């Protein structure tokens, strides 16, 4: 029973392009690595990264690079599946980047743009079912991302989220 699944996985990996594989590795493993080296600490009822950790200096450039790549990908999404992976995985690292205001602003505006996108209509004027399902998942992921920011962020971040929602 396990052997056919194993063979399917190998076949799938072979069919996947190098770039897709690189995206998958980067977005699936980077949050785990960061959380392993810099675990979150609960302070005043909020999850935060401990600022006194020596590894913070090593991890900050990694986070900045990771989220800048994320920003570029969100503005030019390669595929709906990729967008979904990006949103779900980057949500885990939100507590680490609440201090980067400019980056947070740009991310929030990009994600709200994704959330506010309408469904793709086919030539008949009806939405194609797979597209609409995927779009729903993506909208949900974007909403959860912004919700996490509201829960974890401070007052100024909440203001930024609300202003971006209204505008």
């Amino acid at each position, binding site marked *: 029973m396990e052997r056919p699944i194993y063979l399917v996985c190998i076949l799938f*990996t072979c069919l996947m392009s190098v*770039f*897709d594989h690189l995206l998958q*590795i980067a977005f699936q*493993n980077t949050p785990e690595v960061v959380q392993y*080296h810099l675990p979150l600490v609960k302070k005043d009822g909020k999850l935060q990264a401990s600022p006194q950790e020596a590894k913070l200096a090593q*991890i900050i450039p990694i986070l900045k690079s990771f989220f800048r*790549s994320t920003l*570029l990908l969100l503005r*030019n999404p390669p595929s709906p599946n990729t967008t979904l992976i990006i949103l779900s995985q980057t949500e885990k690292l939100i507590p680490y980047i609440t201090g980067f205001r400019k980056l947070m602003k740009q991310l929030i505006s990009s994600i709200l743009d994704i959330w506010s996108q309408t469904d793709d209509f086919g030539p008949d004027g009806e939405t194609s079912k797979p597209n609409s399902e995927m779009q729903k998942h993506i909208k949900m992921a974007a909403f959860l991302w912004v919700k996490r920011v509201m829960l974890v962020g401070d007052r100024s971040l909440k203001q930024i989220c609300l202003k971006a929602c209204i505008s």
Partner: protein
Amino acid sequence: MTRGRTSKFPKKSAKNPLGQITEPGEIQKRNKDKYDKNKVRNDARKAAARAIVLDEIAQKKAIEDGKGALFDGMTMEQFLRSDLGDSQVSQIQEEESHKPMQGQLLDGNSSFYEFMKHIDQDFLELDPDGLECVNDEDKMGGLRFELNMDILSIWEKQLVEEKSLQTTKQILVALKNRIVQATGQPSYGAPDLSCMHPIHLSNVSI
């Protein structure tokens, strides 16, 4: 005539018998150099120090201009530690002597120059300054290699098992470069990278 001198304005020397002989303090200071016993010795020392300083400045200038001698700016210890052996010194001296000879050939006997052209073109074309070849790739630093599935699998293994930060950095650099490459294309919307042929993507260099 009265005995002794009587005057309305008594002389200062009367109060200070040594007033005519001793000078006031300011004048003493001014004439200190005149009456200094060690003046000659101090002057000699000053002149020697000035000469040493001027010599050092001239040496430094010569080194900066490239006109200094071979061992300028080098202490004995530095020279002994350096790899400049006798053979290299003689080689450098030969190279330095080559250029004026070449110049003489060009300026002087043109027929001999033509003759040398036929015999030994390399001698005429030798440029000692260009002997060191600098690798441009070394200047940029880093390795260039093609990204493929094998490398990705190695990285994935390192991330899963070792949680290596170094590997994470490498992956993010590769990702950033690939994204910039992709988004930098003339855009007609987002390029659909998933449908690109794997061969093109495997030839990506980092």
